[in-house]
């Protein structure tokens, strides 16, 4: 190798190290000590970027509508592409460079990676995740309607309709697995039976064989747990195969861009985002709220509320904020009246909804 090449490489490496070092060690004292910084880690790039963008927009809406507060609030967004090592990098960057006081994360993977980091550094962490592991530890919280809550509503509705035989199609993903594991547990005490359970990996496009496998199971309804586009392809291929059995889901229908595929079908969803939130989101983004957007909106407001309640003139500590968070009951959020339980899980309700004329409608509780 030529001497000149070595020099060029040396210079590039040196510049990179100095650049990162500069940002890390940069004195951030220009911001007043009473600014509460919130770091948000979500997929901002890649195939699921639209979800991360929905979360970003929801938090920005919450921030714009915050009103007068005694503390200042600042939000920093970081991308992790839903990759564990990138999540850890993002969390460390937010801690060291931005010196955040609180984290908001999206997905079970990110939540599981960030939770121990938050705990160790005494930073409040809210996960938008179904995996209850994410809430382990003093500083970790979850805002996601728990699978058990959604399953209760699902089972009640199945019983009301006299359905005895349930067929399941599930994508091999953390959310779906958490829901189904809990559902099977709860079904033990009922007369409802799971007659077929088909699993597929994300990225699968050909469901015809697993559909054929379940066709003679006698299912009276199929529970579909899949994200777009697998969900739409699955439904289309089911219809092509001549299956007219009703379908239902937990959460997934509303995230589809093709609601007409599910016309007339009922499903369970975490409690309605309030009309107020949906309006605000529509006005800002021209879209309906994406998965977790309403949760992110609530989380920001909860963090603000807890920080504001801490008395005194100095900046609230994480311990004080946690104490205030644990006291919260009947907080009026985008997902209804929220309370925090002893595990640090925000309890929100689930509701039965139906797609009517291409729009989701709640059918009472």
């Amino acid at each position, binding site marked *: 190798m030529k001497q000149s090449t*070595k020099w060029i490489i040396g210079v590039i490496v040196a510049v990179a190290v100095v650049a*990162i070092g500069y940002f890390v060690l940069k004195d951030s004292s220009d911001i007043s000590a009473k600014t509460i910084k919130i770091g948000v880690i979500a997929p901002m790039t890649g195939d699921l970027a639209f979800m991360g963008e929905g979360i970003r927009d929801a938090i920005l809406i919450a921030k714009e509508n915050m009103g007068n507060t005694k503390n200042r609030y600042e939000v920093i967004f970081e991308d992790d592409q839903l990759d*564990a090592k990138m999540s*850890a990098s993002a969390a460390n960057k937010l801690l*060291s460079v931005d010196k955040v006081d609180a984290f908001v994360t999206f997905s079970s993977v990110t939540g599981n990676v960030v939770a121990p980091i938050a705990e160790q550094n005494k930073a409040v962490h809210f996960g938008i995740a179904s995996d209850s592991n994410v809430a382990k530890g003093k500083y970790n919280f979850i805002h996601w309607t728990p699978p058990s809550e959604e399953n209760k509503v699902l089972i009640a509705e199945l019983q009301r309709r006299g359905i005895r035989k349930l067929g399941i199609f599930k994508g*091999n993903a953390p959310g779906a*697995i958490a829901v189904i594991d809990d559902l099977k547990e709860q079904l033990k005490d009922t007369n409802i039976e799971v007659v077929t359970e088909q699993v597929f990996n994300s990225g699968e496009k050909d469901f015809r064989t697993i559909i054929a496998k379940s066709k003679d199971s006698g299912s009276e309804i199929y529970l579909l747990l899949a994200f777009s586009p697998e969900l739409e392809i699955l439904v289309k291929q089911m219809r092509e195969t001549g299956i007219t059995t009703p379908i239902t889901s937990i959460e997934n229908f509303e995230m589809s861009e093709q609601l007409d595929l599910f016309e007339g079908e009922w499903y369970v969803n975490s409690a309605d985002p309030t009309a107020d939130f949906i309006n605000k989101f529509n006005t800002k983004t021209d879209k309906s709220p994406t998965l977790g957007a309403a949760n992110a909106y609530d989380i920001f407001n909860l963090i603000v509320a807890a920080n504001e309640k801490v008395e005194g003139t100095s900046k609230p500590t994480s311990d004080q904020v946690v104490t205030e968070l644990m006291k919260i009951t009947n907080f009026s959020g985008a997902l209804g009246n929220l309370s925090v339980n002893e595990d640090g899980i925000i309890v929100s309700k689930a509701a039965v909804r139906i797609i009517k004329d291409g729009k989701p409608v709640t059918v009472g509780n």
Partner: protein
Amino acid sequence: MEYLIHLAILFVIYATLGVSLNLVVGYTGLLSVTHAAFYGIGAYTTAIFLTKSGVGFFSSLVSGIVIVVVISFLVGVVLSKFKGDYYALVTFGFNAIIFAVFLNWQNLTNGSLGVPGISRPELFGINFANNFNFLILALIFFVLVYFASRFIVNSSFGRVLKAIREDETAIAVFGYKTLSFKLVVFIISAAMAAVAGSLFASYITFIDPSSFQLTESMFILAIIILGGLGNLRGSILGALFLILLPEILRFVGFSSDIDAQMRQVVYGIILILLMLYRPQGLIGEYKL
């Protein structure tokens, strides 16, 4: 500061992966795209041992190495029949199968939910929950791997490997059992990847299958191709570049979907240009 330590730990882990893969790809001339499988087996062994039994970190590390040695021996025997692009394809397939096992053997690996709550090691009263201590630990393993690799490539064993790379038939004529040489270096390389996997699992404290997909094998391959094949320092350089690059981009600012895709376009073009004008990588000594 924590951030720099964190990046240093990631860099050390990926440098370990790069150096070990270079033994197979750069020195022996076998294009293996399955390093993430061994990395993953190492990580899962540590994760499962530490969360489901009372075994300590170092025993779990050794168990991981033993399991990987057995599996890589079997895979290596199968691979001994192949060369060139067929070799690459079989390793590709092997990675896909191991990934499917991580994802679907739920009783053992917890499937896509992943394994949370993996503990950090503790030894001689030193608690490696502290990131700086952990960096030192990772560095010690890296130095061991690096010097072991350097010893291998400079030994007579290493010279045979390079001869296999240049002309396998010729060296076979001299009576060298090239198959056993290829098998041994493959196993050594896999065992080193298992060490990196153990470190990764106990550092992040949570693992899930998505960290060990085919794309991860390609990422490690990109590290050594960029840095330079047949040059151990090249792998260190490659790891430094590819770990730091996305972090620098955090400060340059992105946020839209398009910027990330632009990055992919740039990655692709760099690969093409590298192959056109510098197929041996930045400081490499061997062209594929």
